[in-house]
């Protein structure tokens, strides 16, 4: 079936440290994955995506890793800043629709 889950609902990191947000997915046939950031009172905002023919993709301060063997996706944020505080969602592409995971709230300690 289609379901996407997260290992941790909350994550607290020190400013300047790296953050790693994990996600498990269940549909081994999924070939597209995406991360969104949702700040308080706003809609989800695209961060980075990856196709199943890749295992790593880098953006500005963010890296997405895909491990198809264990159906695991992670988002790494380098040098975490206060502006990174948000809820982060992974999603996988089902039949013409994104299926979202639960979300992880990332908080930054000064």
């Amino acid at each position: 079936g289609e379901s996407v889950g997260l290992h941790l609902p909350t994550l607290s990191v020190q400013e300047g440290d790296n953050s790693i947000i994990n996600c498990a997915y269940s549909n081994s046939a999924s070939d597209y994955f995406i991360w969104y950031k949702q700040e308080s009172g706003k809609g989800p905002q695209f961060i980075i995506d990856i196709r199943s023919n890749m295992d790593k993709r880098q953006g500005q301060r963010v890296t997405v890793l895909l491990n198809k063997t264990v159906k695991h996706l992670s988002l790494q944020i380098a040098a975490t800043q206060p502006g990174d505080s948000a809820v982060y969602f992974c999603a996988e592409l089902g039949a013409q629709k994104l299926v979202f995971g639960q979300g992880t709230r990332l908080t930054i300690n000064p």
Partner: protein
Amino acid sequence: DTAVSQTPKYLVTQMGNDKSIKCEQNLGHDTMYWYKQDSKKFLKIMFSYNNKELIINETVPNRFSPKSPDKAHLNLHINSLELGDSAVYFCASSPDPSGEKLFFGSGTQLSVL
């Protein structure tokens, strides 16, 4: 310029009322969506339209009726509102019906009393 805009941002209403949420995108995208986010932040698709045609109806009660007058607009009308309809409703658009890389609006927080 807001890419995907929806109105109103807040909607407070009584049970049994009928209400509408409007959405417009100026990205030139072909596909638009409605997602519902519950109090636990879980996001679930409700509908998608491609060039004014319905392509996904995710077993939403028929009290919810989307309408797409043109490909830049997708409105959501809700009849006989129930307490359980309280949520944040997000409109989104994407360049094509593949479902990839959605651009979301800022949400409409609906509170049914």
